[in-house]
């Protein structure tokens, strides 16, 4: 499934009615089965762009189109959120079934598909737990299982691991890469961490400070499957250095801004 983002702009009105231009004229095509990472300083519109792709925000101008095969019983896109965004009143199992319910999948099939994806994300045995009974890392896995269960053509991930500690994050990154090898999803992945972007993606897109524009697109010259050895390869280090220098000035500026 290809994602074609065509000259998308988005201007919000804040509480006082003032216009906040979040995105300006962003164009970007994500190829089928491609893993694209979006980086950029805080508040630059990364989440906004992802929401536009998910159909949760209507762009002020421009459009997003999907190109590929569509099958019934599967979703066009599915999102994994930063704070996992699990429904606290649903058990792990019921959380994963949520999307399937909305797709109208029959109960028996729902249970089967949910279990399958819980197994895939290493959550077998945790079906009856409530989210608050899980650690942050486990919760994030449930979020991923819930998104994968609807078999989306495009998987959208908004800083899925940023609330986790470094070690857990590293473990989940590895799992995500494994899952990707198996499911071959098109993935758009938002992150603050340059290392993470380089380590995971085929291509890293850098957005500027607000209003977000595409500042640069950096292809990652690393083979797959990724191995720990690649972390010290010049390709990795070079990409990280290049991205850091692109972002540093933007980040310094963003730091001094009050939160909106």
């Amino acid at each position, binding site marked *: 499934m290809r994602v074609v983002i065509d000259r998308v702009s988005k201007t919000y009105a804040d509480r006082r009615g003032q216009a906040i231009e979040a995105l300006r004229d962003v164009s970007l095509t994500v190829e089928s089965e491609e893993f694209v990472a979006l980086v950029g300083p805080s508040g630059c519109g990364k989440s906004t762009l992802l929401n536009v792709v998910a159909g949760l925000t209507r762009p002020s101008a421009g459009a997003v189109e999907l190109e590929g095969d569509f099958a019934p019983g599967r979703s066009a896109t599915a999102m994994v*959120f930063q704070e996992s965004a699990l429904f606290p009143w649903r058990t792990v199992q019921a959380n994963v079934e949520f999307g399937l319910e909305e797709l109208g999948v029959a109960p028996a099939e729902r249970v089967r598909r949910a279990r399958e994806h819980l197994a895939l994300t290493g959550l077998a045995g945790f079906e009856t737990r409530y989210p608050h009974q899980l650690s942050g890392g486990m919760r994030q896995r449930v979020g991923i299982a819930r998104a994968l269960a609807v078999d989306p053509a495009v998987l959208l991930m908004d800083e899925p691991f940023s609330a986790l500690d470094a070690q857990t994050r590293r473990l989940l990154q590895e799992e995500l890469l494994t899952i990707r090898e198996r499911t071959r999803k098109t993935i758009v992945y938002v992150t603050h961490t340059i290392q993470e972007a380089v380590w995971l993606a085929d291509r890293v897109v850098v957005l500027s400070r607000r209003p977000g524009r595409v500042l640069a697109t950096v292809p990652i010259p690393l083979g797959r499957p990724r191995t720990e050895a690649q972390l010290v390869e010049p390709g990795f280090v070079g990409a990280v250095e290049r991205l850091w220098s692109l972002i540093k000035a933007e980040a310094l500026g963003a730091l001094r801004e009050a939160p909106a």
Partner: protein
Amino acid sequence: MSVRVPVPDRTRVLERREHPVVRVLALAGLLVLWELVTRTGRVPSLFLPSPLDVIQSGVEMLRSGELVTDVLTSLRRVVLGVGLGALGGVSVGLAIGISRLAEAVGNPLIAATFPIPKIALLPLLILWLGIGEASKVAVITLGVFFPMAINTYAGVRSADPLLIRAAVSFGAGRWSLIRKVLLPSALPMIFAGLKLGAGTSLLLLVAAEMIAANAGIGFLVLHAQNLMETTKLMVGIVLLSVLGVLTHWLLVRCERAAIPWTT
């Protein structure tokens, strides 16, 4: 000059010891003090009946069965009133929480009618609902309706926008959203409203049973007041506070069962 000292201990300020015995002693102590004050005879029993007299009077009323009738009668009214009030309040609260149109209509109306003292509405209630059970239940219903509606509204409005986006991102429609996100989000606030409403319902019991009652705890209080039987009045008051404590405890248990996802 170098010295070696233990780190300053700041834990004292943070410590909070338990005092389980005091908890019991406090209530008992109050009762004993009260009894002693009445025993001195300096305060006429009309002013402050002794706790033993109150207990004795309560036991007698229990034996004669009048207390049981009163409690059951009042409970029926309270349960019905709270039930209807909660149903109405939650429905209206959900409606104004969800639909901006309903909010625009409902919010000002609620703000304007909420502060009307319920006793002032007694004549209208008598006119419309008569002097039977309906009007008594209605007083309680009205008292419960407002905290329930206001709390449900606040609960719906405080639903985590992230969860709403998450549900919508999976294709949830309006109805799904209400049932699967907004309602469960509002549950804790709904229970808070229920606790408030249940408390209010007991306060309003006296007002409700002003309308042609011949049984009920509110009636007991009014009757004792009219006849200046302060001992019986105290029985009624004690009964109301016991009921209040029990109701609260019951609701807390229900809440735990209904909201298993919080700790």
